């Protein structure tokens, strides 16, 4: 289960609206390398993951990604407040507006709706941890690209925080991969799949 704290992980306070920027940033809400995809990936991979450290890591990072999902929603919400029809048309936000008004819906910047095909649960510890490492780097690149297109310091500040978290999670998953391989056959890491072939309780 989960409980809710009535605060963001990092504050979001944006003075000026910018629907064109919101349309780009929403990709981290429901896009291929976004926070929803990240959270569901880790929280789904953890059930068959062997080794206590990895179950803990996937649970905790998957939970933190939900807090990031909320921060992205806060950014998009504040960037699209009190818009006039003219602003909506001129900014290109009209293609989103016609379907969702200013509600927050998980889509990519292209408008493609969220799909679980953005992530994988392979059921193999080494494979899933490599996916997780790649996912953190893909999200980091997306935040770098957002920062290239954004000069509002109110938006750059929380985006820079989120970018930095991708780097920290990459570090933690790297340590997780090392913990996993240390417990496998050092002559052949692929000799068996610890999520499927281990009949006895895994140490």
């Amino acid at each position: 289960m989960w409980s809710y704290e009535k605060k963001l992980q990092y504050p979001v306070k944006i003075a000026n609206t910018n629907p064109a920027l919101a349309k780009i940033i929403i990709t981290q809400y429901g896009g291929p390398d976004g926070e929803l995809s990240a959270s569901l990936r880790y929280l789904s991979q953890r059930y068959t993951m062997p080794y206590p450290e990895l179950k803990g890591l996937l649970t905790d990072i998957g939970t933190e990604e939900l807090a990031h999902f909320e921060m992205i929603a806060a950014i998009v919400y504040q960037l699209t407040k009190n818009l006039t029809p003219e602003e909506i048309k001129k900014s290109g936000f009209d293609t989103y507006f016609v379907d969702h008004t200013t509600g927050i819906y998980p889509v990519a910047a292209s408008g493609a709706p969220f799909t679980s095909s953005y992530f994988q649960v392979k059921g193999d510890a080494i494979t899933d941890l490599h996916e997780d490492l790649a996912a953190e780097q893909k999200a980091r690149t997306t935040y770098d690209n957002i920062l290239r297109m954004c000069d509002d310091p109110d938006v750059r500040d929380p985006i820079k925080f989120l970018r930095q978290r991708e780097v920290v999670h990459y570090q933690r998953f790297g340590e997780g991969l090392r913990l996993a391989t240390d417990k496998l056959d050092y002559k052949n890491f692929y000799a068996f799949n610890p999520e499927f072939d281990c009949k006895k309780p895994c140490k």
Partner: protein
Amino acid sequence: MESTNEREAMLRRLSALSFAMWELHIFLDTHNCDKEAMRKLEAYDIKYKALLKEYESKFGPLILNISDANNNADCNNRWAWTQGPWPWEDGKEC
């Protein structure tokens, strides 16, 4: 509004403390015998709990505690949980 600024300033201090604790917590997932990290986590936790208590007494609950919320004759705390600003809001919502 002065109380809004005080609320935001206190919330930022709380967020900074809880972020430091979270960072130590996920570090400990992969370094579960690191005594230095554990010591720091405990020190931050003491500061966080004291500040959380002060914040909640002034500005309402961040984490809903059923007995605290119900132990209040005029339902103030129950009302405060649903009352804005919610975390994504700027306080100017209609």
